[in-house]
């Protein structure tokens, strides 16, 4: 039997709570790799800094294995975040947990963070590092069968499909890794992707070692079918134009991410994907407001890239605060 005690509980190094009435030099919204690394850099520079988080670790927590973070050959997503959080906690950066940011405002020189509870946090500068969430397929039936076969977290929901037939949609690392995880539990796994693999060759090779996995590339998903539970999907072979049905009990959607930027709409400039536009210094269109990681328009959403963008944003914020003083 395994026990996965959380870092917030089981460690003497724990981030203290955040004093909501205090005015900070810098508040960081988001507690994934970008936010945590920004906190580390800002605190070491001597800024008064606080973290406003919803889910410590962000999407990394839902990742089974991370094998491309320099210095760690293999870590579960959770263990990697544990290392990150403990490092930040050792510097006693205060953290506001389970916080939902509703909107942002700049009033004179202060950035106001309006929380969904009605409370307002104030800082001279902020870093937006709110990450992203799984993208949906946007096909007929996907919403209807959400939680009735359609799933977005393979490690969470995989055990519910023991001995059943499942489909994984997507061709990147997340999709291939989900397929590998599911191959150990499910009767069969069919990976369906509309173009060619984007995943690293090393994980594709691993996937190919499982005999219960089928791969359909250049195949588009048109519809999720069933009733009351999902029974299969309709796909179109892009080469021949033929449509057919693949029967399955579950569909795991791993086709990339959408930025969590809704609260900042109309406040900072975004591109047509609703990613926050930043320059090389992580500055947004509003002075004193910086952004980092998956929520921004930087290419390649990777843990190590998000973390280093967080560091850059903190260093720029530090320069900004020093200019104000």
């Amino acid at each position, binding site marked *: 039997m*395994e*026990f996965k*005690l959380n870092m917030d509980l089981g460690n003497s190094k724990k981030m203290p709570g955040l004093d909501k009435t205090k005015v900070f030099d810098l508040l960081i919204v988001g507690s994934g790799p970008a936010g945590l690394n920004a906190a580390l850099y800002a605190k070491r520079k001597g800024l008064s800094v606080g973290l406003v988080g919803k889910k410590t670790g962000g999407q990394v927590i839902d990742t089974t294995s991370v094998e491309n973070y320099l210095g760690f050959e293999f870590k579960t997503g959770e263990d990697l975040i544990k290392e990150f959080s403990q490092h930040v906690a050792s510097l006693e950066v205060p953290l506001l947990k389970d916080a939902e940011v509703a909107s942002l405002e700049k009033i004179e020189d202060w950035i106001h963070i309006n929380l969904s509870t009605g409370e307002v946090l104030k800082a001279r500068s902020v870093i937006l590092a709110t990450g992203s969430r799984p993208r949906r397929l946007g096909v007929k039936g996907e919403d209807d069968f959400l939680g009735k076969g359609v799933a977005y977290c393979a490690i969470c929901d995989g055990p519910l499909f023991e001995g059943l037939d499942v489909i994984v949609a997507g061709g990147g690392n997340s999709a291939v890794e989900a397929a590998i995880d599911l191959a150990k539990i499910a009767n069969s796994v069919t990976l369906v992707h509309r173009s060619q693999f984007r995943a690293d060759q090393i994980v594709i090779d691993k996937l190919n070692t499982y005999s219960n996995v089928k791969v359909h590339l250049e195949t588009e998903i048109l519809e999720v079918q069933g009733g009351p539970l999902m029974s299969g999907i309709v796909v179109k072979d892009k080469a021949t134009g033929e449509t057919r049905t693949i029967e399955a009990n579950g569909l795991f959607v791993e086709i990339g991410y959408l930025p969590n930027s809704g609260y900042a709409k109309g406040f900072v400039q975004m591109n047509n994907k609703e990613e926050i536009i930043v320059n090389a210094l992580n500055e947004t269109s509003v002075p004193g407001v910086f952004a980092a990681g998956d929520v921004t328009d930087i290419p390649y959403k990777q843990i190590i890239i998000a973390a280093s963008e967080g560091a850059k944003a903190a260093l720029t914020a530090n320069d900004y605060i020093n200019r104000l003083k």
Partner: protein
Amino acid sequence: MSLLNEQLQGQLRTIFADMKNDMTLAVFTQKDGCETCEDTVSFMKEIEALSDKIHFEALDIDADQERAKAYNVKMVPSIVMLNDKKEYLGIKFNGIPAGHEINSFIPAILEVSGAGEALPESFLNQISAIKDPVNIKVFVTLSCPHCAGAVQKAHKLALESPMIDAEMVEAQTFYALSDQFNVSSVPKIVINDQYEFVGNQPLEVFLEEIAKTQSA
């Protein structure tokens, strides 16, 4: 051989040092046909040994029918948490809270001992308006990192309202019940066996769904 390794025991002792009052883990089992009962009891006994304030009580769903009824226990293994006055506050775990669920189980012990954090006032007003009984089932798997968060929220609501009974249901142990509620994504939250949503949603969403069960 103990289930909890030494490192984990040490961490839990530190956490339990923050407990305020005594509390009881009342564990319901059954003689036959319960695969996970033995492990659950061993686990609970190990937890009991980590703090003087934690007490273990063994109950049988058949022999102790009256008490099972009082705590709305319908399946085994079921862990019911009682406060220092041996009162049931609406906090229950069906199935073994191992894996990631230790992160809802340990905080619940602290909460029942009176060492929890208060909810913001805006929520308390809404919770005090709940007049009709509410049952919240939170279906989880032990490999789900964010399920414990949903269980914690449901339990927090139960603590704040005498009308709310909140229970974790480990989906694989209680396969038939999970099947009945079409659980294929976790956490799945089912309120009064009627209203449901998926995911570790904000407390606002829990309260919105609960409001649907209340008579006008």
